[in-house]
Protein backbone atom coordinates (compact mmCIF):
# COMPACT_ATOMS: atom_id res chain seq x y z
CA UNK A 1 0.00 0.00 0.00
CA UNK A 2 1.25 3.39 -0.86
CA UNK A 3 2.26 5.78 1.89
CA UNK A 4 -0.04 8.57 2.90
CA UNK A 5 2.71 11.10 2.18
CA UNK A 6 2.97 9.99 -1.45
CA UNK A 7 -0.77 10.27 -1.90
CA UNK A 8 -0.81 13.76 -0.40
CA UNK A 9 2.06 14.84 -2.64
CA UNK A 10 0.25 13.48 -5.70
CA UNK A 11 -2.86 15.27 -4.60
CA UNK A 12 -1.02 18.60 -4.46
CA UNK A 13 0.67 18.02 -7.83
CA UNK A 14 -2.61 16.85 -9.29
CA UNK A 15 -4.46 19.97 -8.19
CA UNK A 16 -1.75 22.21 -9.64
CA UNK A 17 -1.78 20.28 -12.92
CA UNK A 18 -5.57 20.40 -12.83
CA UNK A 19 -5.50 24.20 -12.74
CA UNK A 20 -3.45 24.27 -15.94
CA UNK A 21 -5.78 21.71 -17.57
CA UNK A 22 -8.68 23.89 -16.48
CA UNK A 23 -7.20 26.97 -18.18
CA UNK A 24 -6.73 25.02 -21.44
CA UNK A 25 -10.19 23.50 -21.32
CA UNK A 26 -11.70 26.84 -20.39
CA UNK A 27 -10.94 28.21 -23.84
CA UNK A 28 -12.69 25.27 -25.47
CA UNK A 29 -15.58 25.53 -23.03
CA UNK A 30 -16.17 29.19 -23.82
CA UNK A 31 -16.17 28.65 -27.59
CA UNK A 32 -18.32 25.54 -27.39
CA UNK A 33 -20.69 27.05 -24.88
CA UNK A 34 -21.19 30.26 -26.81
CA UNK A 35 -21.12 29.19 -30.46
CA UNK A 36 -22.51 25.64 -29.83
CA UNK A 37 -19.94 24.15 -32.18
CA UNK A 38 -16.74 22.31 -31.31
CA UNK A 39 -13.28 23.28 -32.42
CA UNK A 40 -11.68 19.94 -33.27
CA UNK A 41 -8.36 21.74 -33.85
CA UNK A 42 -8.29 22.86 -30.21
CA UNK A 43 -5.21 20.74 -29.46
CA UNK A 44 -3.21 22.30 -32.26
CA UNK A 45 -3.70 25.75 -30.74
CA UNK A 46 -2.45 24.38 -27.41
CA UNK A 47 0.55 23.15 -29.38
CA UNK A 48 1.04 26.58 -31.01
CA UNK A 49 0.84 28.22 -27.57
CA UNK A 50 3.49 25.85 -26.26
CA UNK A 51 5.79 26.53 -29.21
CA UNK A 52 5.15 30.25 -28.73
CA UNK A 53 6.42 29.96 -25.16
CA UNK A 54 9.39 27.92 -26.34
CA UNK A 55 10.48 30.43 -28.98
CA UNK A 56 9.93 33.44 -26.74
CA UNK A 57 12.07 31.69 -24.16
CA UNK A 58 14.74 30.93 -26.75
CA UNK A 59 14.83 34.44 -28.20
CA UNK A 60 14.38 36.70 -25.21
CA UNK A 61 14.53 34.34 -22.25
CA UNK A 62 10.90 35.01 -21.31
CA UNK A 63 9.49 32.57 -18.77
CA UNK A 64 6.19 30.80 -19.59
CA UNK A 65 4.25 33.26 -17.46
CA UNK A 66 5.32 36.28 -19.50
CA UNK A 67 5.14 34.29 -22.72
CA UNK A 68 1.53 33.43 -21.93
CA UNK A 69 0.65 37.13 -22.14
CA UNK A 70 2.10 37.34 -25.65
CA UNK A 71 0.40 34.05 -26.53
CA UNK A 72 -2.92 35.37 -25.29
CA UNK A 73 -2.61 38.47 -27.48
CA UNK A 74 -1.83 36.29 -30.48
CA UNK A 75 -4.65 33.94 -29.58
CA UNK A 76 -7.17 36.78 -29.54
CA UNK A 77 -6.24 37.72 -33.11
CA UNK A 78 -6.05 34.12 -34.31
CA UNK A 79 -9.41 33.34 -32.73
CA UNK A 80 -11.19 36.16 -34.52
CA UNK A 81 -9.64 35.10 -37.83
CA UNK A 82 -10.63 31.50 -37.07
CA UNK A 83 -14.20 32.56 -36.39
CA UNK A 84 -14.55 34.28 -39.73
CA UNK A 85 -12.75 31.56 -41.66
CA UNK A 86 -14.45 28.51 -40.15
CA UNK A 87 -17.57 29.35 -38.18
CA UNK A 88 -19.05 32.49 -39.73
CA UNK A 89 -20.43 30.88 -42.89
CA UNK A 90 -22.15 28.21 -40.87
CA UNK A 91 -23.46 30.35 -37.99
CA UNK A 92 -24.50 33.64 -39.57
CA UNK A 93 -28.15 34.49 -39.48
CA UNK A 94 -29.07 31.33 -37.53
CA UNK A 95 -31.01 31.50 -34.31
CA UNK A 96 -30.70 27.77 -33.62
CA UNK A 97 -27.46 25.94 -34.19
CA UNK A 98 -28.46 22.50 -35.43
CA UNK A 99 -26.65 19.18 -35.70
CA UNK A 100 -25.84 19.88 -39.35
CA UNK A 101 -23.81 22.99 -38.44
CA UNK A 102 -22.13 21.03 -35.69
CA UNK A 103 -21.14 18.33 -38.16
CA UNK A 104 -19.83 20.77 -40.78
CA UNK A 105 -17.66 22.74 -38.34
CA UNK A 106 -16.43 19.57 -36.65
CA UNK A 107 -15.25 18.21 -39.98
CA UNK A 108 -13.77 21.50 -41.21
CA UNK A 109 -11.81 22.11 -38.00
CA UNK A 110 -10.65 18.52 -38.03
CA UNK A 111 -9.14 19.26 -41.45
CA UNK A 112 -7.45 22.28 -39.90
CA UNK A 113 -5.96 20.12 -37.18
CA UNK A 114 -4.52 17.75 -39.78
CA UNK A 115 -2.94 20.73 -41.56
CA UNK A 116 -1.53 22.31 -38.41
CA UNK A 117 0.03 19.09 -37.05
CA UNK A 118 1.84 18.51 -40.31
CA UNK A 119 2.90 22.12 -40.79
CA UNK A 120 4.29 21.84 -37.26
CA UNK A 121 6.26 18.74 -38.25
CA UNK A 122 7.70 20.50 -41.30
CA UNK A 123 8.52 23.69 -39.43
CA UNK A 124 9.88 22.31 -36.18
CA UNK A 125 10.58 18.62 -36.91
CA UNK A 126 9.12 15.90 -34.74
CA UNK A 127 11.85 15.99 -32.09
CA UNK A 128 10.85 17.11 -28.61
CA UNK A 129 12.08 20.50 -27.46
CA UNK A 130 12.49 21.37 -23.82
CA UNK A 131 12.14 24.78 -22.34
CA UNK A 132 14.58 26.09 -19.74
CA UNK A 133 12.52 27.30 -16.82
CA UNK A 134 13.19 26.21 -13.27
CA UNK A 135 12.58 28.71 -10.51
CA UNK A 136 13.37 26.14 -7.80
CA UNK A 137 11.24 24.42 -5.21
CA UNK A 138 9.17 25.51 -2.29
CA UNK A 139 8.87 23.38 0.84
CA UNK A 140 5.37 23.17 2.24
CA UNK A 141 5.05 21.16 5.43
CA UNK A 142 7.79 18.71 4.47
CA UNK A 143 6.57 18.51 0.87
CA UNK A 144 8.80 19.93 -1.84
CA UNK A 145 6.73 21.46 -4.63
CA UNK A 146 8.31 22.86 -7.82
CA UNK A 147 7.70 26.60 -7.90
CA UNK A 148 7.18 26.59 -11.67
CA UNK A 149 4.13 24.40 -11.22
CA UNK A 150 2.83 26.63 -8.44
CA UNK A 151 3.21 29.78 -10.54
CA UNK A 152 1.47 28.45 -13.64
CA UNK A 153 -1.23 26.82 -11.51
CA UNK A 154 -2.00 30.12 -9.82
CA UNK A 155 -1.84 31.99 -13.13
CA UNK A 156 -4.36 29.53 -14.60
CA UNK A 157 -6.62 30.09 -11.64
CA UNK A 158 -6.22 33.83 -12.21
CA UNK A 159 -7.22 33.52 -15.87
CA UNK A 160 -10.38 31.64 -14.95
CA UNK A 161 -11.26 34.15 -12.24
CA UNK A 162 -10.72 37.09 -14.62
CA UNK A 163 -12.85 35.47 -17.30
CA UNK A 164 -15.58 34.90 -14.74
CA UNK A 165 -15.52 38.56 -13.71
CA UNK A 166 -15.48 39.60 -17.35
CA UNK A 167 -18.46 37.43 -18.26
CA UNK A 168 -20.58 38.39 -15.27
CA UNK A 169 -19.69 42.04 -14.66
CA UNK A 170 -19.06 43.72 -18.01
CA UNK A 171 -21.48 44.70 -20.77
CA UNK A 172 -19.62 42.64 -23.37
CA UNK A 173 -19.50 39.66 -21.04
CA UNK A 174 -23.22 39.85 -20.47
CA UNK A 175 -23.80 40.13 -24.19
CA UNK A 176 -21.74 36.96 -24.73
CA UNK A 177 -23.76 35.11 -22.10
CA UNK A 178 -27.00 36.38 -23.57
CA UNK A 179 -25.94 35.16 -27.01
CA UNK A 180 -25.02 31.76 -25.61
CA UNK A 181 -28.42 31.41 -23.94
CA UNK A 182 -30.73 32.59 -26.71
CA UNK A 183 -29.50 34.04 -29.96
CA UNK A 184 -32.85 35.42 -31.09
CA UNK A 185 -33.53 37.15 -27.77
CA UNK A 186 -29.98 38.54 -27.64
CA UNK A 187 -30.46 40.04 -31.10
CA UNK A 188 -33.70 41.67 -29.99
CA UNK A 189 -31.80 43.24 -27.08
CA UNK A 190 -29.44 44.89 -29.54
CA UNK A 191 -26.58 42.40 -29.39
CA UNK A 192 -24.67 42.05 -32.64
CA UNK A 193 -24.43 38.25 -32.95
CA UNK A 194 -21.42 38.17 -35.25
CA UNK A 195 -19.15 40.44 -33.25
CA UNK A 196 -20.13 38.84 -29.94
CA UNK A 197 -19.44 35.33 -31.22
CA UNK A 198 -16.19 36.44 -32.86
CA UNK A 199 -14.95 38.10 -29.67
CA UNK A 200 -15.92 35.09 -27.57
CA UNK A 201 -14.00 32.84 -29.96
CA UNK A 202 -11.00 35.18 -29.73
CA UNK A 203 -11.07 35.12 -25.94
CA UNK A 204 -11.37 31.35 -26.00
CA UNK A 205 -8.31 31.10 -28.22
CA UNK A 206 -6.39 33.54 -26.00
CA UNK A 207 -7.01 31.28 -23.01
CA UNK A 208 -6.18 28.15 -24.99
CA UNK A 209 -2.84 29.49 -26.20
CA UNK A 210 -1.92 30.96 -22.81
CA UNK A 211 -2.75 27.56 -21.32
CA UNK A 212 -0.44 25.99 -23.89
CA UNK A 213 2.35 28.23 -22.60
CA UNK A 214 1.63 27.13 -19.02
CA UNK A 215 1.57 23.51 -20.07
CA UNK A 216 5.24 23.66 -21.15
CA UNK A 217 6.17 23.47 -17.46
CA UNK A 218 4.52 20.05 -17.29
CA UNK A 219 5.72 18.69 -20.64
CA UNK A 220 8.78 17.00 -19.17
CA UNK A 221 9.30 14.96 -22.34
CA UNK A 222 9.43 18.20 -24.36
CA UNK A 223 7.18 19.96 -26.83
CA UNK A 224 6.35 18.14 -30.06
CA UNK A 225 3.84 18.89 -32.85
CA UNK A 226 1.82 15.97 -31.44
CA UNK A 227 1.02 17.42 -28.00
CA UNK A 228 -2.39 18.46 -29.27
CA UNK A 229 -3.35 14.86 -29.97
CA UNK A 230 -3.12 14.14 -26.21
CA UNK A 231 -4.24 17.41 -24.67
CA UNK A 232 -7.20 18.13 -26.93
CA UNK A 233 -8.97 14.93 -25.85
CA UNK A 234 -8.12 15.78 -22.22
CA UNK A 235 -9.75 19.18 -22.73
CA UNK A 236 -12.83 17.58 -24.27
CA UNK A 237 -13.08 15.21 -21.31
CA UNK A 238 -12.77 18.12 -18.87
CA UNK A 239 -15.46 20.18 -20.55
CA UNK A 240 -17.85 17.23 -20.68
CA UNK A 241 -17.11 16.43 -17.04
CA UNK A 242 -17.76 19.95 -15.87
CA UNK A 243 -20.62 20.59 -18.25
CA UNK A 244 -20.48 22.56 -21.46
CA UNK A 245 -21.05 26.28 -21.01
CA UNK A 246 -20.64 26.15 -17.22
CA UNK A 247 -17.71 28.38 -16.44
CA UNK A 248 -16.82 26.79 -13.11
CA UNK A 249 -17.15 23.43 -14.80
CA UNK A 250 -13.73 23.76 -16.43
CA UNK A 251 -12.16 24.20 -13.01
CA UNK A 252 -13.99 21.27 -11.45
CA UNK A 253 -13.32 19.06 -14.47
CA UNK A 254 -9.67 20.12 -14.73
CA UNK A 255 -8.91 19.47 -11.08
CA UNK A 256 -10.78 16.15 -11.23
CA UNK A 257 -8.71 14.95 -14.16
CA UNK A 258 -5.44 16.34 -12.75
CA UNK A 259 -5.99 14.64 -9.40
CA UNK A 260 -7.23 11.43 -11.02
CA UNK A 261 -4.10 11.24 -13.19
CA UNK A 262 -1.60 11.96 -10.44
CA UNK A 263 -3.21 10.04 -7.58
CA UNK A 264 -3.97 6.95 -9.70
CA UNK A 265 -0.30 6.79 -10.67
CA UNK A 266 0.53 6.01 -7.06
CA UNK A 267 -1.51 2.81 -7.24
CA UNK A 268 -1.48 1.67 -10.88
CA UNK A 269 0.96 1.95 -13.80
CA UNK A 270 1.02 5.34 -15.50
CA UNK A 271 -0.56 3.93 -18.67
CA UNK A 272 -3.63 2.68 -16.81
CA UNK A 273 -3.97 6.06 -15.08
CA UNK A 274 -4.09 7.80 -18.46
CA UNK A 275 -6.56 5.25 -19.85
CA UNK A 276 -8.82 5.80 -16.83
CA UNK A 277 -8.63 9.58 -17.18
CA UNK A 278 -9.86 9.28 -20.77
CA UNK A 279 -12.48 6.61 -20.18
CA UNK A 280 -14.09 8.41 -17.25
CA UNK A 281 -15.93 10.53 -19.80
CA UNK A 282 -18.07 7.64 -21.04
CA UNK A 283 -19.94 6.87 -17.79
CA UNK A 284 -20.28 10.61 -17.20
CA UNK A 285 -21.85 11.08 -20.63
CA UNK A 286 -24.12 8.11 -20.10
CA UNK A 287 -25.29 9.03 -16.61
CA UNK A 288 -24.97 12.82 -16.41
CA UNK A 289 -24.67 14.24 -19.92
CA UNK A 290 -24.96 17.79 -18.61
CA UNK A 291 -21.83 17.35 -16.50
CA UNK A 292 -21.23 16.59 -12.85
CA UNK A 293 -22.03 20.14 -11.76
CA UNK A 294 -25.67 21.05 -11.17
Amino acid sequence: MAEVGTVVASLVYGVLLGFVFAAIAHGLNLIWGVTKVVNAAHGEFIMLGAYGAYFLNLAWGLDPLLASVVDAGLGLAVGVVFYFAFLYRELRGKDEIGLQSELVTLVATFGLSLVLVNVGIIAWKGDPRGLRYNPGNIVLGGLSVPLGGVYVGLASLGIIAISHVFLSRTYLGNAIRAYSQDIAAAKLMGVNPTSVAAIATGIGFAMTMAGGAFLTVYLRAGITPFVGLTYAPISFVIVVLGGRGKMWGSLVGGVTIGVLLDVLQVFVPVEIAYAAAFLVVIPVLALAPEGILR
Partner: protein
Amino acid sequence: MTILRPTFLRLRAMSLRILPGHAWGKVRALGPTAQGLGLVLAVLAVVGPVLPVAIFVLLILFMIYATWAYSINLITGMTGYVSFGHVVFVGTGGYALGYGVKVWNIAPFAGVALGGVLGAVLALVIGVVTLRLRGAYFAIATLVTPLAAFYIVSGTPALGDGSGLPMNLGFQIGSQYYTIWALLAAEVALTWWVTRGRLGLGIRALREDEDAARAVGISVSRVKLILYILSGGFAGAAGAVFAWYVSGVFPDSFNLLFSLTMLAMIIIGGMGTVLGPMLGAVIVLIPHQILIRILPQGEPIAIGVSVILIALFLPGGIVGTIRQYVPDARRYFE
Protein backbone atom coordinates in the same frame (compact mmCIF):
# COMPACT_ATOMS: atom_id res chain seq x y z
CA MET B 1 -17.83 8.14 -78.63
CA THR B 2 -19.02 6.92 -82.03
CA ILE B 3 -15.98 4.70 -82.24
CA LEU B 4 -16.45 3.34 -78.75
CA ARG B 5 -20.09 2.48 -79.06
CA PRO B 6 -19.95 -0.57 -81.39
CA THR B 7 -17.20 -2.09 -79.25
CA PHE B 8 -19.31 -1.55 -76.20
CA LEU B 9 -22.28 -3.19 -77.87
CA ARG B 10 -20.18 -6.13 -78.96
CA LEU B 11 -18.92 -6.51 -75.38
CA ARG B 12 -22.47 -6.45 -74.17
CA ALA B 13 -23.47 -9.05 -76.71
CA MET B 14 -20.58 -11.18 -75.51
CA SER B 15 -21.62 -10.87 -71.92
CA LEU B 16 -25.17 -11.75 -72.96
CA ARG B 17 -23.85 -14.99 -74.29
CA ILE B 18 -21.84 -15.65 -71.08
CA LEU B 19 -24.70 -14.94 -68.70
CA PRO B 20 -28.16 -16.46 -69.21
CA GLY B 21 -30.84 -13.92 -70.07
CA HIS B 22 -32.58 -13.64 -66.73
CA ALA B 23 -29.25 -13.23 -64.86
CA TRP B 24 -28.27 -10.41 -67.19
CA GLY B 25 -31.58 -8.74 -66.46
CA LYS B 26 -30.85 -8.91 -62.76
CA VAL B 27 -27.41 -7.38 -63.22
CA ARG B 28 -28.92 -4.59 -65.29
CA ALA B 29 -31.49 -3.90 -62.62
CA LEU B 30 -28.68 -3.14 -60.16
CA GLY B 31 -27.96 0.18 -61.82
CA PRO B 32 -24.71 1.61 -63.19
CA THR B 33 -23.04 2.31 -59.84
CA ALA B 34 -23.34 -1.24 -58.60
CA GLN B 35 -22.33 -2.59 -62.01
CA GLY B 36 -19.28 -0.34 -62.08
CA LEU B 37 -18.17 -1.26 -58.57
CA GLY B 38 -18.84 -4.93 -59.33
CA LEU B 39 -16.72 -4.65 -62.46
CA VAL B 40 -13.86 -3.01 -60.52
CA LEU B 41 -13.98 -5.77 -57.92
CA ALA B 42 -14.16 -8.49 -60.59
CA VAL B 43 -11.18 -6.99 -62.41
CA LEU B 44 -9.26 -6.79 -59.14
CA ALA B 45 -9.99 -10.46 -58.46
CA VAL B 46 -8.93 -11.61 -61.92
CA VAL B 47 -5.95 -9.46 -62.79
CA GLY B 48 -4.41 -9.23 -59.30
CA PRO B 49 -2.11 -12.26 -59.54
CA VAL B 50 -0.71 -11.37 -62.98
CA LEU B 51 0.31 -7.87 -61.92
CA PRO B 52 3.88 -7.05 -60.88
CA VAL B 53 4.45 -7.74 -57.17
CA ALA B 54 4.95 -4.08 -56.29
CA ILE B 55 1.52 -3.16 -57.66
CA PHE B 56 -0.06 -6.29 -56.20
CA VAL B 57 1.21 -5.32 -52.73
CA LEU B 58 0.01 -1.76 -53.22
CA LEU B 59 -3.44 -3.07 -54.19
CA ILE B 60 -3.64 -4.97 -50.90
CA LEU B 61 -2.99 -1.72 -49.05
CA PHE B 62 -5.52 0.06 -51.25
CA MET B 63 -8.21 -2.51 -50.47
CA ILE B 64 -7.43 -2.27 -46.74
CA TYR B 65 -7.93 1.49 -46.91
CA ALA B 66 -11.08 1.10 -48.97
CA THR B 67 -12.48 -1.37 -46.44
CA TRP B 68 -11.82 1.16 -43.67
CA ALA B 69 -13.46 3.90 -45.72
CA TYR B 70 -16.60 1.81 -46.29
CA SER B 71 -16.56 0.86 -42.62
CA ILE B 72 -16.60 4.43 -41.30
CA ASN B 73 -19.09 5.26 -44.05
CA LEU B 74 -21.53 2.75 -42.55
CA ILE B 75 -21.83 4.76 -39.35
CA THR B 76 -20.62 8.31 -40.02
CA GLY B 77 -21.71 8.52 -43.63
CA MET B 78 -25.07 6.84 -43.18
CA THR B 79 -26.18 8.34 -39.87
CA GLY B 80 -24.11 11.54 -39.49
CA TYR B 81 -22.63 10.32 -36.20
CA VAL B 82 -18.95 11.31 -36.49
CA SER B 83 -16.88 8.41 -35.22
CA PHE B 84 -13.57 10.16 -34.48
CA GLY B 85 -12.18 7.13 -32.72
CA HIS B 86 -12.77 4.57 -35.45
CA VAL B 87 -9.14 3.51 -35.29
CA VAL B 88 -9.93 1.72 -32.02
CA PHE B 89 -11.45 -1.11 -34.08
CA VAL B 90 -8.43 -1.22 -36.38
CA GLY B 91 -6.07 -1.58 -33.44
CA THR B 92 -8.30 -4.12 -31.71
CA GLY B 93 -8.49 -6.26 -34.85
CA GLY B 94 -4.73 -6.05 -35.26
CA TYR B 95 -4.08 -7.09 -31.68
CA ALA B 96 -6.60 -9.93 -31.98
CA LEU B 97 -4.69 -11.34 -34.94
CA GLY B 98 -1.30 -10.69 -33.32
CA TYR B 99 -2.27 -12.35 -30.04
CA GLY B 100 -4.04 -15.26 -31.72
CA VAL B 101 -1.14 -15.99 -34.05
CA LYS B 102 1.58 -15.59 -31.45
CA VAL B 103 -0.02 -17.23 -28.44
CA TRP B 104 -2.60 -19.67 -29.80
CA ASN B 105 -0.82 -20.33 -33.08
CA ILE B 106 -4.00 -19.90 -35.10
CA ALA B 107 -3.96 -19.35 -38.86
CA PRO B 108 -4.00 -15.74 -40.02
CA PHE B 109 -7.44 -16.34 -41.60
CA ALA B 110 -8.79 -17.25 -38.19
CA GLY B 111 -7.03 -14.17 -36.81
CA VAL B 112 -8.88 -11.99 -39.30
CA ALA B 113 -12.19 -13.57 -38.29
CA LEU B 114 -11.30 -13.07 -34.63
CA GLY B 115 -10.42 -9.43 -35.34
CA GLY B 116 -13.77 -8.92 -37.02
CA VAL B 117 -15.68 -10.52 -34.16
CA LEU B 118 -13.80 -8.54 -31.51
CA GLY B 119 -14.29 -5.32 -33.49
CA ALA B 120 -18.03 -5.99 -33.66
CA VAL B 121 -18.24 -6.82 -29.95
CA LEU B 122 -16.31 -3.68 -29.03
CA ALA B 123 -18.62 -1.64 -31.26
CA LEU B 124 -21.60 -3.19 -29.49
CA VAL B 125 -20.17 -2.26 -26.08
CA ILE B 126 -19.23 1.30 -27.10
CA GLY B 127 -22.37 1.77 -29.16
CA VAL B 128 -24.85 0.78 -26.48
CA VAL B 129 -23.50 3.53 -24.25
CA THR B 130 -22.58 6.26 -26.73
CA LEU B 131 -25.09 6.07 -29.59
CA ARG B 132 -27.62 7.85 -27.42
CA LEU B 133 -25.39 10.92 -27.56
CA ARG B 134 -25.65 13.32 -30.44
CA GLY B 135 -23.31 15.51 -32.41
CA ALA B 136 -20.08 16.47 -30.75
CA TYR B 137 -20.80 14.37 -27.65
CA PHE B 138 -20.72 11.17 -29.66
CA ALA B 139 -17.53 12.33 -31.41
CA ILE B 140 -15.86 12.96 -28.05
CA ALA B 141 -17.02 9.70 -26.50
CA THR B 142 -15.58 7.76 -29.44
CA LEU B 143 -12.46 9.93 -29.59
CA VAL B 144 -11.28 8.86 -26.15
CA THR B 145 -11.56 5.11 -26.79
CA PRO B 146 -8.45 4.67 -28.99
CA LEU B 147 -6.42 6.86 -26.61
CA ALA B 148 -7.44 4.69 -23.69
CA ALA B 149 -6.75 1.57 -25.76
CA PHE B 150 -3.31 2.93 -26.67
CA TYR B 151 -2.39 3.34 -23.01
CA ILE B 152 -3.91 -0.01 -22.03
CA VAL B 153 -1.97 -2.03 -24.62
CA SER B 154 1.18 -0.04 -23.83
CA GLY B 155 0.87 -1.15 -20.23
CA THR B 156 -0.13 -4.80 -20.79
CA PRO B 157 2.80 -7.26 -20.76
CA ALA B 158 0.75 -9.96 -22.56
CA LEU B 159 0.35 -7.55 -25.49
CA GLY B 160 4.05 -6.76 -25.66
CA ASP B 161 3.97 -3.61 -23.51
CA GLY B 162 4.95 -0.63 -25.59
CA SER B 163 6.83 -2.62 -28.22
CA GLY B 164 3.85 -4.44 -29.74
CA LEU B 165 3.67 -7.96 -31.18
CA PRO B 166 5.92 -8.50 -34.19
CA MET B 167 5.07 -11.62 -36.20
CA ASN B 168 6.98 -13.81 -38.57
CA LEU B 169 4.43 -15.20 -40.99
CA GLY B 170 6.40 -15.08 -44.20
CA PHE B 171 5.37 -13.60 -47.51
CA GLN B 172 1.67 -14.51 -47.86
CA ILE B 173 0.51 -11.79 -50.19
CA GLY B 174 -1.82 -14.07 -52.17
CA SER B 175 -3.91 -15.01 -49.13
CA GLN B 176 -3.86 -11.43 -47.89
CA TYR B 177 -5.05 -10.20 -51.26
CA TYR B 178 -8.06 -12.48 -51.47
CA THR B 179 -8.95 -12.11 -47.79
CA ILE B 180 -9.18 -8.34 -48.04
CA TRP B 181 -10.83 -8.62 -51.46
CA ALA B 182 -13.58 -10.75 -49.97
CA LEU B 183 -14.03 -8.34 -47.08
CA LEU B 184 -14.20 -5.34 -49.38
CA ALA B 185 -16.62 -7.04 -51.77
CA ALA B 186 -18.91 -8.04 -48.91
CA GLU B 187 -18.80 -4.55 -47.48
CA VAL B 188 -19.52 -2.83 -50.80
CA ALA B 189 -22.47 -5.16 -51.34
CA LEU B 190 -23.71 -4.47 -47.82
CA THR B 191 -23.36 -0.71 -48.29
CA TRP B 192 -25.27 -0.92 -51.54
CA TRP B 193 -27.94 -3.08 -49.95
CA VAL B 194 -28.54 -0.81 -46.94
CA THR B 195 -29.08 2.21 -49.19
CA ARG B 196 -31.97 0.46 -50.98
CA GLY B 197 -35.58 -0.08 -50.12
CA ARG B 198 -37.26 0.51 -46.81
CA LEU B 199 -34.04 0.25 -44.82
CA GLY B 200 -32.32 2.80 -47.05
CA LEU B 201 -35.21 5.21 -46.70
CA GLY B 202 -35.18 4.70 -42.95
CA ILE B 203 -31.47 5.42 -42.73
CA ARG B 204 -31.85 8.54 -44.85
CA ALA B 205 -34.68 9.75 -42.63
CA LEU B 206 -32.55 9.07 -39.56
CA ARG B 207 -29.69 11.14 -40.98
CA GLU B 208 -31.93 14.08 -41.85
CA ASP B 209 -33.94 14.23 -38.63
CA GLU B 210 -33.63 11.56 -36.01
CA ASP B 211 -36.65 12.63 -33.95
CA ALA B 212 -38.90 12.74 -36.99
CA ALA B 213 -37.63 9.32 -38.08
CA ARG B 214 -38.41 7.91 -34.64
CA ALA B 215 -41.83 9.50 -34.78
CA VAL B 216 -42.74 7.78 -38.04
CA GLY B 217 -41.90 4.41 -36.55
CA ILE B 218 -38.31 3.72 -37.56
CA SER B 219 -36.50 1.86 -34.77
CA VAL B 220 -33.72 4.43 -34.79
CA SER B 221 -31.67 2.99 -31.94
CA ARG B 222 -31.61 -0.48 -33.44
CA VAL B 223 -30.64 0.76 -36.91
CA LYS B 224 -27.80 2.87 -35.49
CA LEU B 225 -26.50 0.06 -33.32
CA ILE B 226 -26.59 -2.51 -36.14
CA LEU B 227 -24.77 -0.15 -38.50
CA TYR B 228 -22.16 0.59 -35.82
CA ILE B 229 -21.59 -3.11 -35.07
CA LEU B 230 -21.16 -3.91 -38.77
CA SER B 231 -18.85 -0.95 -39.11
CA GLY B 232 -16.74 -2.04 -36.14
CA GLY B 233 -16.61 -5.61 -37.40
CA PHE B 234 -15.33 -4.69 -40.85
CA ALA B 235 -12.83 -2.17 -39.44
CA GLY B 236 -11.58 -4.84 -37.04
CA ALA B 237 -11.21 -7.47 -39.75
CA ALA B 238 -9.42 -5.02 -42.05
CA GLY B 239 -7.22 -3.98 -39.11
CA ALA B 240 -6.29 -7.64 -38.66
CA VAL B 241 -5.40 -7.91 -42.35
CA PHE B 242 -3.30 -4.77 -41.94
CA ALA B 243 -1.41 -6.33 -39.02
CA TRP B 244 -0.89 -9.44 -41.17
CA TYR B 245 0.26 -7.22 -44.06
CA VAL B 246 2.87 -5.35 -41.99
CA SER B 247 3.77 -8.51 -39.99
CA GLY B 248 3.09 -7.06 -36.61
CA VAL B 249 0.90 -4.88 -34.50
CA PHE B 250 2.09 -1.99 -32.37
CA PRO B 251 0.47 0.52 -30.00
CA ASP B 252 0.73 3.02 -32.82
CA SER B 253 -2.11 1.09 -34.50
CA PHE B 254 -4.31 3.22 -32.24
CA ASN B 255 -2.86 6.46 -33.65
CA LEU B 256 -5.60 9.04 -34.02
CA LEU B 257 -4.15 10.23 -37.32
CA PHE B 258 -5.40 6.93 -38.79
CA SER B 259 -8.93 7.82 -37.72
CA LEU B 260 -8.56 11.17 -39.38
CA THR B 261 -7.41 9.56 -42.64
CA MET B 262 -10.46 7.27 -42.65
CA LEU B 263 -12.74 10.20 -42.04
CA ALA B 264 -11.01 12.24 -44.75
CA MET B 265 -11.60 9.49 -47.31
CA ILE B 266 -15.38 9.60 -46.92
CA ILE B 267 -15.55 13.37 -46.60
CA ILE B 268 -13.68 13.77 -49.89
CA GLY B 269 -15.51 10.95 -51.67
CA GLY B 270 -18.97 11.74 -50.38
CA MET B 271 -20.53 10.65 -47.09
CA GLY B 272 -23.26 8.06 -47.06
CA THR B 273 -22.86 7.15 -50.73
CA VAL B 274 -22.00 3.80 -52.30
CA LEU B 275 -19.30 5.11 -54.61
CA GLY B 276 -17.79 7.83 -52.40
CA PRO B 277 -15.59 5.71 -50.11
CA MET B 278 -13.98 3.99 -53.11
CA LEU B 279 -13.20 7.32 -54.78
CA GLY B 280 -11.97 8.71 -51.47
CA ALA B 281 -9.66 5.75 -50.92
CA VAL B 282 -8.15 6.21 -54.39
CA ILE B 283 -7.71 9.94 -53.91
CA VAL B 284 -6.16 9.61 -50.48
CA LEU B 285 -3.95 6.60 -51.08
CA ILE B 286 -2.45 7.24 -54.52
CA PRO B 287 -0.85 10.62 -53.71
CA HIS B 288 0.28 9.04 -50.42
CA GLN B 289 2.41 6.52 -52.30
CA ILE B 290 3.99 9.25 -54.44
CA LEU B 291 4.42 11.99 -51.88
CA ILE B 292 5.64 9.81 -49.03
CA ARG B 293 9.08 9.73 -50.63
CA ILE B 294 9.29 13.40 -51.59
CA LEU B 295 7.56 15.31 -48.82
CA PRO B 296 5.92 13.06 -46.23
CA GLN B 297 3.91 15.92 -44.73
CA GLY B 298 2.71 17.23 -48.08
CA GLU B 299 -0.06 14.68 -48.38
CA PRO B 300 -1.75 15.11 -44.99
CA ILE B 301 -1.62 18.87 -45.52
CA ALA B 302 -3.24 18.50 -48.93
CA ILE B 303 -5.86 16.18 -47.41
CA GLY B 304 -6.48 18.60 -44.57
CA VAL B 305 -6.94 21.54 -46.94
CA SER B 306 -9.28 19.51 -49.15
CA VAL B 307 -11.29 18.44 -46.11
CA ILE B 308 -11.64 22.06 -44.97
CA LEU B 309 -12.70 23.29 -48.40
CA ILE B 310 -15.08 20.39 -49.00
CA ALA B 311 -16.67 20.69 -45.56
CA LEU B 312 -17.24 24.42 -45.94
CA PHE B 313 -18.14 24.70 -49.61
CA LEU B 314 -19.10 21.28 -50.99
CA PRO B 315 -20.44 19.30 -48.04
CA GLY B 316 -21.55 16.46 -50.30
CA GLY B 317 -18.01 15.49 -51.25
CA ILE B 318 -17.30 14.48 -54.83
CA VAL B 319 -20.29 12.20 -55.27
CA GLY B 320 -22.77 14.43 -53.45
CA THR B 321 -21.67 17.52 -55.36
CA ILE B 322 -21.97 15.83 -58.75
CA ARG B 323 -25.42 14.55 -57.80
CA GLN B 324 -26.45 18.02 -56.77
CA TYR B 325 -25.25 19.93 -59.82
CA VAL B 326 -25.53 17.31 -62.59
CA PRO B 327 -28.91 15.62 -62.09
CA ASP B 328 -28.43 13.56 -65.26
CA ALA B 329 -25.42 11.84 -63.71
CA ARG B 330 -27.31 10.65 -60.63
CA ARG B 331 -27.72 7.13 -61.96
CA TYR B 332 -23.97 6.81 -62.21
CA PHE B 333 -23.11 8.33 -58.83
CA GLU B 334 -24.99 6.67 -56.03
